[in-house]
């Protein structure tokens, strides 16, 4: 496969990964907080937080941290598989 089409595949996969992560980001930045009053009727097991409060004070933050470590790993895999990664 030539370099140009390899670059096109790389960029397509990069864009797909971007979209996946922005969808997750959107849900935990906006959607879960919009429905916080309903979520508050649910309690987080063991820790006993109202879920709506928990998501704003802690839950969304944990999702963001985990998501970013996963993103770094996934993007690096795409770079390597497409031969677009930097030398180690």
């Amino acid at each position: 496969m030539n370099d140009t089409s390899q670059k096109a595949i790389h960029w397509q996969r990069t864009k797909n990964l971007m979209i996946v992560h922005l969808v997750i980001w959107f849900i935990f930045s906006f959607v879960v907080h919009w429905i916080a009053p309903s979520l508050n009727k649910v309690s987080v097991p063991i820790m006993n937080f109202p879920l709506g409060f928990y998501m704003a004070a802690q839950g969304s933050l944990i999702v963001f941290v985990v998501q970013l470590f996963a993103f770094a790993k996934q993007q690096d895999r795409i770079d390597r598989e497409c031969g677009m990664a930097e030398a180690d």
Partner: protein
Amino acid sequence: MSIFRMQGSFIDNLPKIYGFYTGGFVAFILLMALLERAGLKEDTIGLLFVGFTVVIYAFIGWMSRTMQLDAYYVAGRQVPAVFNGMATAADWMSGASFVAMAGGIYLGGHPYLAFVVGWTGGYVLVAVLMAPYLRKFGCYTVPDFIGTRYGGNLARFCAVVVLVVASFTYVTAQINATGTIASRALLIPFGVAIWIGLGAILICSMLGGMRAVTWTQVAQYIVLIVAYLVPVIWMSNKQGFGLIPQLVYGDAVHRIAELEQLHQVGVLKSAAQSGLASLNVKHNAPPDTFVGHVQFVTLVACMMMGTASLPHILMRYFTTPSVRAARNSVAWSLLFIFLLYFTAPALATFTKLQMLDPNLATSIIGKSVAEVNAHVWVQKWASVGAVKVLDLNNDGIIQVNEFFLNPDIVVLATPEIAGLPYVISGLVAAGGMAAAMSTADGLLLAIANALSHDLYYKMIDPKADVKRRLVVARVLLIFIGAAGSAVASLRLTGILGAVAWAFDFAMSGLFFPLVLGVWWKRANRAGAIAGMVVGLVVGTWYLYMVYNKLMAPWIGIDHLRFGIIGAGASLIAMVVVTLMTPAPDKETQDMVDEIRIPKGDTYLSSTH
């Protein structure tokens, strides 16, 4: 002593050096604790904490001095991901995060958590949309990217203007905070303290630029996170709330809801008294109206898009050794920031419980005036005007609307409310100083670098040699710092107002030109200039109209959220003008292709 000059071995030895530093800091805390037992005065302990840590930062700044361009502008691009994460966390967490956030949650309840969500989730945008691409590009400053991607001095100049407006708004609040803390710890007047604070800030940045700021920020992160976590965890254990307060405050949230019924929180209300507020809203009351929802999500959106547009944050990722390291570094940054941000709501909740629960010795609400005034911490903070006890209905009992406080004391008075030794208060002062200084350093450097590199070198005197460029950079740093201190000494705005505005300004002018510069090849110079100018002008106009009450806010989008209007206008202007004008030339389009792949050299050479 030569470790700072032998680059290879210095980087390899970083874990050892900062491990040793952390151990030394812990030993210093223990020494202070012993001296306190031996009878050392409280004032002296506070002075030693702030003085000792600031001298260490100055020492690191001095050791990191440099006369090389890439060391001055991007720390030689060799900062490992984890350490850059710590430096970014310190750069990011300002005096406001450290001192004001927990108090904000205490008074504001659930709606205030929009700041907690917004100031963390923005890093997803930084990692996914921007940092790796800007790192590959190889720029020294954010306007450097705008200027090269879109071409022409006008685009570069617009980016410099947005950067200066946003960062200068922010830096005055930070210099103000260093002045406040220094004046309290060193027992000198605010007007003098603010210049001493500036001197300390400048020593950390002036001699070594980005390299010095990087290594002092790592040191400042360690101090600020220890200073934030130790008092909260100690308080939690002492009061019997549990070993890890962040995980166990769920029951406290429910208990507070019961106590709020008992004390009629949200029913009994009073207006602020000389800048101090009483508890007027419930702790766990998420917005339940349409406007309330809009206010929550727009504040989240502004803080996130602002994060991804603030040059002092973006430029931290120019310093990593590779694109891969830049991505990892964003993740580490957020982890280090998370440690403070998931603690603040726990602190706010437990402080509230301690005030409301009549079964606890610390309780305030529902007690008699005499009992409330018997608390030592109430007397102490009342004497400096941060607490006010007013029996408005003259029944001899303090209701929830009769106890007023400055929200900052939720953090500052934690050690005293829980009866911890004074050494912990000294530690908190050192932490607040570290938080404010590290952010001020990052901001001042972002402004001075943009003016010296983009305005002076790229536009005014492109023939200037390295020495001249570095001298100009330092002179500008001093002037901007002095201007910031002069404005800060006027004490124009509350800290939080200025901080939120900085995010709004940055997103109004820079968010879409930066994102579309990478993700939309068709974006061109005319579009980018239109985006920056229209965004900044419309955003500023909306702020002016709403803040001065010349216009009612649209669906609850008040002055803290004006970035939504500015960035919206910026996007429309940029897309419309781009489509009306010709596509960028092939060279520009190839440049965009090149920055999209990590492999290969940076687009700009290492000393440009």
